[in-house]
């Protein structure tokens, strides 16, 4: 009887892992979440994390959705999230337009060093082209809400929830995300991007870095 119960528990644990594995984040992050939130709550937190990521990408698309997650992570001081989602946003944008976003994922450290007001100005100025008006608006909204401004609209409430979830996620990622080497970090892709697109993006981006 006990063995049967134990087997069911193991099966349950494996089945719970399936939706989590699709998130494709660093396994250290999952282990930290399980440790911090406890094994009982950890899976629920990770499902929530997946739902929030899917939700923000469904609402804004993969490019802006990842920019929202990037700004939420980098404001918390996490390079792992900052670089991962900024890189992902860049790849999705390059894949759909063949062009580069004005903000390079390698700028994450520079963005993190800016005082919050300066970062707000930098985002506004970098995304001043009309093509990026929506990106600029939403990213500045994330920044304002993260700095303690009260949500005013339904959209604000949704963004605030993303911020809250990422606040907990970064509690778990900060031990390895605080000082991670930017050039060693990869994109946090929810939908795969073909390797040749990644290669072409890297070549195009490299030319702007020189």
């Amino acid at each position, binding site marked *: 009887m006990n063995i049967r119960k134990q087997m069911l528990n193991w099966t349950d644990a494996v089945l719970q892992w399936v939706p989590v594995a699709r998130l494709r984040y660093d396994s250290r992050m999952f282990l930290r979440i399980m440790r*911090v*939130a406890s094994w009982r*709550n950890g899976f629920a*937190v990770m499902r*929530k994390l997946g739902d929030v990521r899917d939700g923000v990408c469904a609402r804004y698309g993969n490019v802006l959705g990842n920019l929202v997650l990037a700004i939420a992570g*980098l*404001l*918390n*001081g*996490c*390079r792992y999230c*900052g670089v991962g989602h900024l890189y992902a946003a860049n790849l999705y944008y390059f894949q759909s337009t063949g062009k580069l976003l004005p903000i390079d994922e390698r700028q994450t*450290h520079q*963005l*993190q*060093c*800016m*005082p*919050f007001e300066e*970062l707000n100005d930098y985002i506004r100025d970098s995304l001043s082209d009309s093509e990026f008006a929506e990106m600029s608006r939403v990213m500045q909204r994330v920044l304002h809400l*993260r*700095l*303690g401004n009260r*949500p005013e609209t*339904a959209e604000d*409430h*949704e963004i*605030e*929830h993303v911020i*809250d*979830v990422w*606040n*907990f996620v*970064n*509690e778990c990622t*900060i*031990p390895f*995300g*605080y*000082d991670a080497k930017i050039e060693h970090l990869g994109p946090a892709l929810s939908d795969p991007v073909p390797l040749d697109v990644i290669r072409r993006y890297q070549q195009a981006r490299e030319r702007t870095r020189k």
Partner: protein
Amino acid sequence: MPPSSRNPFQIHLMQPQRLHVQIHERIDDTGTLVNRVVDALAEHRQVTQVLVDMRNVNDWTETARVGLGTLQKLLARRQLRTAWIVGSGRTHGLARFIVVRAADSNAATFTSLSSAEEWLATHQGRVAQLLSKVDEPG
């Protein structure tokens, strides 16, 4: 002349139970900071809360990071509720790294003075608060 140009640290009693530690610009020698905080706590035994304001910090050494960790561990041992206020993503990362490494649920990081004060007035632990917000959409 701003105080930071003379002294990178300022420590004073903000309220009877709250010590206010302001750190400016570049942090290097944290030994002095730790000693001054210990002295201030010995002088004001009624203190139960510490507010560390790092909004004006723009650079620090590796040694300073370790020193700030020592300070947080010392505050944790005394069970003082501690709020770190930050002014950039980088300082947020530093403060967060320190409180997480110190494993002190009585310490947390904030991006504004009002949110720090709000939290200091409660008794909820950092992780419990963060987790409760994960479950509270909008």
